[in-house]
């Protein structure tokens, strides 16, 4: 309780500060976190491509916090290979066109060694195309479209989040036996939503569900009433939703307004922490997946939470969630690999990452994770959760129901990936 208040106050202070100074916080110089090393060695530069505006602004900033936290930790330890790590960030505006330009600028002008960050798959695609062209290793930290590690996979791209299909597999199996066979599907009409929906449909069919209807929702839909009325009329047992970002928030609000949050069981593919935080446990209705939760009963979790809060005392989101977690873990792994191979050469890094196993304890999850060498997709534990009826405190929205072994929920979409050959990938090393 007190923790939340403290952080809220902190946040409000900055808000006040920025209000008084005419929004000075925003108009300040672009964030170059230059930590110049005493050593004469050139710093390792990492390009951060997190969204700060558009549909996924909120999540983009959350993953940025995770990524920067990992970088800072390394810098505090003296950097990597004795070199400081520097990051440069540009807003990709949840916009592929901007993503392309940002990636081009990062590589050709800022001369970054690596790129990291993405929420929306369209933007991630745009960035990874540019990265592949130059051979720059790119970590897609949070875009979970099955196509990211499927047909749009790239040799330089590594996908750190569980894919929509992973979540579908994890959630759907239990749902049919628990809630019923009549399913109604809603999904956001873009690549993540479509593919995730396809995956859900496949899984549901496999376990004998009857698909009553499926409705594609344009991205940016503000008014869900018609669809919700339709659901009311259809009276399904289960509604499986693959809806993301702001749309999801709006939908959730209207679902609970229309009193539909209890009656059909809602299977939401994944609930990103920034989309839930601040809305209370009520908002987390139905069953949904996540890759991590700050009250997981595992060693290291509470330390990580504490470290996050010390580093970000003023942020609106007072505890880290899956998005921040992914950003953090991915960057930490990248820097470790650089340390291990002793170089920033792209081929060496790629080869070191492919097939890399990360221990469960290290990742604060229940199962070991592995980077699939054929799709560059991190195969990891998926947790199933529902809204917490008996929260420990006012950040404790989720009740973790179960966790799935990565092997049991491996995404079939990953099979459609064919990575570019090593030869076809330009060598890239900013030295």
């Amino acid at each position, binding site marked *: 309780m007190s923790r939340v208040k403290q952080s809220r106050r902190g946040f409000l202070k900055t808000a006040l500060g920025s209000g008084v100074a005419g929004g000075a916080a925003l*108009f300040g110089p*672009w964030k170059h976190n230059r930590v110049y090393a005493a050593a004469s060695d050139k710093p390792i530069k990492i390009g951060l491509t997190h969204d*700060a505006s558009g549909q996924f602004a909120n999540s983009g900033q959350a993953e940025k916090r995770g990524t920067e936290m990992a970088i800072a930790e390394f810098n505090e330890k003296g950097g990597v290979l004795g070199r400081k790590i520097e990051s440069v960030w540009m807003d990709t505006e949840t916009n592929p*066109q901007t993503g392309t330009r940002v990636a*081009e600028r990062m590589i050709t002008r800022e001369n970054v060694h690596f790129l990291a960050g993405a929420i929306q798959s369209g933007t991630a*695609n745009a960035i990874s195309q540019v990265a592949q062209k130059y051979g720059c290793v790119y970590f897609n930290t949070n875009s979970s479209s099955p196509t990211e590690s499927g047909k749009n996979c790239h040799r330089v791209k590594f996908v750190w989040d569980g894919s929509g299909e992973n979540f579908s597999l994890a959630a759907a199996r239990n749902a049919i036996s628990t809630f019923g066979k009549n399913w109604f599907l809603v999904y956001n*009409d873009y690549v993540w939503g479509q593919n995730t929906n396809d995956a859900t449909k496949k899984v549901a069919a496999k376990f004998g569900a009857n698909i009553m209807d499926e409705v594609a929702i344009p991205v940016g839909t503000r008014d869900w009433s018609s669809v919700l009325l339709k659901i009311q009329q259809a009276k399904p047992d289960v509604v499986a939703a693959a809806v993301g970002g702001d749309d999801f928030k709006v939908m959730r609000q209207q679902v609970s307004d229309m009193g539909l949050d209890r009656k059909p069981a809602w299977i939401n593919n994944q609930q990103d922490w920034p989309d839930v935080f601040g809305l209370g446990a009520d908002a987390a209705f139905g069953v949904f997946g996540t890759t991590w939760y700050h009250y997981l009963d595992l060693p290291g979790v509470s330390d990580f939470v504490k470290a996050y809060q010390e580093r970000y005392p003023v942020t609106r989101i007072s505890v880290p969630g899956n998005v921040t977690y992914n950003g953090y873990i991915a960057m930490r792994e990248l820097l470790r690999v650089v340390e291990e191979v002793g170089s920033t050469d792209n081929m060496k890094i790629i080869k070191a990452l492919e097939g890399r196993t990360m221990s469960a304890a290290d990742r604060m999850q229940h199962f070991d994770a592995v980077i699939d060498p054929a799709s560059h997709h991190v195969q990891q534990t998926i947790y199933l959760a529902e809204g917490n009826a008996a929260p420990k405190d006012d950040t404790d929205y989720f009740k973790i129901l179960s966790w799935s072994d990565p092997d049991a929920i491996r995404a079939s979409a990953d099979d459609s990936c064919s990575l570019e050959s090593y030869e076809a990938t330009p060598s890239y090393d900013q030295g």
Partner: protein
Amino acid sequence: MDYPTKQTKAWVTPQIVVAIVLFGTMPLWIEAVGLYQYLGVEVIIWMIFALGYNLLLGYTGLPSFGHGAFFGIGAYAYGLAQFEVWPNLWFCLAAAVVVTAAFGAATALFLSHRRGIYFALMSIAFGQIFFFIASKWTDVTGGEDGLLDIQRLPVEFGAMSLSTRSNVELYYLCFALFCVLVILLWRLTNSPYGRVLRAIKQNEMRVSFIGYKVSVIKWSVFTLSTAIAGLAGGLFAMAQEGAYINIMSLQWSGTIVLMVLIGGGFVSFWGPVLGVILYFVARDVLGAYTEAWLLWFGLMFMLLVMFKPEGLAGMWRDLLGTLVTRKAEPKGNPAKVEG
């Protein structure tokens, strides 16, 4: 709001030479001034788009607020032509131009008898319609995801084939097209057709009373301007190796108006070029200092609309004017806003 009264019959003017030299050498110095090659590619493509758009806004006085849609259609057409028909540069670019012009021509049928604000409102509606269709027709456009893996096709002249893979190579392709377009547009705007366009802006009714069928001319200029937007869109698809929906939104359609106006498209052939450079450089340089660069850019735009709708080119002219009039007799300031 005057274009220069000085008259020309030249194919190539000193300004064109300056532009060619300046932009022809850009890859050599762009990095030295702290920018990067891809930005150059983006700038020159948008200059093509803006020059075509200015035929409408600056010359004919038709404020289209839906032109981004045609830019986007060009990009999709390029990508689809490459995937589905024949991956040849000239063919794909031609497809981008022709398909976009076809959509433009159909749209123009609804718009060519409208003027002023009503034209603007209807163009918003059409822009939105194309935007929604593109965002929904996932099978064709890739929906929100866009068309990915569009190739930068090589330039083929018979046996010779030039790569456009690198940004500099692509830049020179765009530059070559830019040069051709600048010269053609320069001639066109100084031909009877161009004169009539400007006359339509000044007084549409009188143009019909000196014997021109205004709606046909408006239809043709709209179509022409969409064709150029299609070309720019095709090149843009090459540049970003993909075609995405965002460019078709109202926001981007508004942005092109903003660029052209700030540059001074109302008074100068070169206004759109200035506007595009200012916008992109401001975005990159101002953007390096503040996330809220659009705030400052928007404020600048408001001030220009209020005090100097002639934009940069108009200021430049005033500056030249004061230099000249210091020698000659003083002249009144015709800065008053006029339709």
